[in-house]
């Protein structure tokens, strides 16, 4: 069987969510570009046009902006099996305001409009599935906005570790604080407080 070992996770992701077999999907994935990025390398920088959605096979990405004072604000982390893209740039063809950067040596599948089209042609149910993904993404964004506006730092932290169980061990605390919109000192306080409540020995 023709089988693209390089996009193993994407293949698994699609076959486990769609009514399609591996060989059918292989012919579509074959046309995708799989790229390796070194730690700290950029996939997108401010002012670029984002052409692709990035599916993370291996490694870890982050999408962030830099404000006028030079401070970084992390919108998302993209560990294995996540999609990351600047949708504003990709779908509305505008220069990006964001940076997408590899935080670890990463292997990424570049997914363009063509890929989406091919999948939709081949699998009618894909459109529904893609819609569901999009709505799930919107749901997460909605929650994230609501948490940022109204929730306590501890609740934001707990939500974060539920969404990203292993990120705390993969990135510096300053980045987690940046994602949560709190200072690193506040993050330390939250974690100290949780340990006080939950550490039993």
């Amino acid at each position: 069987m023709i089988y693209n070992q390089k996009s193993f996770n994407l293949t698994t992701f699609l076959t486990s969510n769609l009514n399609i077999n591996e060989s059918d999907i292989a012919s579509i994935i074959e046309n995708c570009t799989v790229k390796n990025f070194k730690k700290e390398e950029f996939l997108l920088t401010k002012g670029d046009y984002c052409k692709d959605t990035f599916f993370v096979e291996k490694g870890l990405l982050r999408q962030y902006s830099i404000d006028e004072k030079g401070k970084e604000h992390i919108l998302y982390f993209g560990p294995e099996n996540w999609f990351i893209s600047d949708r504003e740039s990709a779908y509305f063809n505008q220069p990006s305001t964001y940076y997408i950067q590899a935080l670890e040596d990463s292997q990424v599948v570049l997914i363009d409009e063509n890929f989406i089209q091919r999948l939709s042609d081949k699998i009618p149910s894909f459109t529904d599935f893609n819609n569901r993904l999009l709505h799930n993404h919107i749901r997460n964004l909605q929650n994230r906005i609501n948490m940022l506006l109204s929730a306590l730092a501890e609740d934001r932290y707990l939500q974060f570790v539920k969404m990203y169980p292993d990120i705390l061990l993969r990135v510096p605390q300053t980045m987690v604080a940046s994602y949560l919109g709190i200072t690193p000192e506040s993050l330390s306080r939250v974690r100290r407080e949780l340990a006080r409540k939950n550490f039993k020995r």
Partner: protein
Amino acid sequence: MKTKTVELVASPRAPHFVGDGFRVHNFIPSGFRMDMQRMDPFILLDYNSTYNFPPSDKPKGVGVHPHKGFETVTIAYKGKVAHHDSSGGGGVIGEGDVQWMTAANGVLHKEHHEEEWSKTGGDFQMVQLWVNLPAKDKKSNPKYQAIKYEDIHRYQLENNAGTIEIIAGEYKGTKGVASTFTPIHMFNAKLNKGGKADFEFPAHYNTTVLVIEGQVIINNQDVAPTDHMALMANDGETFKIEATEDAIVLILSGEPINEPIAAHGPFVMNTQQELIEAFNDFNNGKFGYLED
């Protein structure tokens, strides 16, 4: 008794930094034929080959991180490391010392170059090894064995061949002071040029020879130069090492635990479910708290 032959001699892989204080070559589990299953019970071996760290007022090292499900063994050849953990423990690992930490049900710790050592800097050379625990012992409480160089038992080889320092296990009747959960032999063989030593372990024990200094020939046949690791096959019990120059070699041999391994980052458990629990426990503060 059959000869345990050399399966391969691995050269050191490209180094990477762990934190900013350890520049290591990974042999286990990323080396060819050195994955966790093949090397069981040894699940990780990072080797900081001799590297000169310049003086630094701020000690370099690795910040707070957890471990769960196994033991870490740090063998210091050059340099000094200070460590602290979430239960208030800590200490300094100096040249020749060995620290055997049983992480078991979970610790949070950090390790840095010792403050005074860091100020002068110098050559730094260490091995960090992870030894897996059987499922039943993964739940036990954490503990340390701080083994000072002067307390390590020694066996003098005949003909001025050198000394075998026994960290754990047994060499020709001399026992190591470290206690282990499963049968493990861990020796530093310090051989003079031309010095020979022979070793005997059960065939099914997974066994390696890491050349810390100098060069050795194994079984009169396979050359293992400095910073290389010889993986021994599971085809026999005995092998010989001869130093072609003054040499130090670390010898590891352990009985495989033969249980399923579910590993991610600093947690090594038996099932995926246990791994998820380990992450949840860590994220929710169940490992305690330690200031960076």
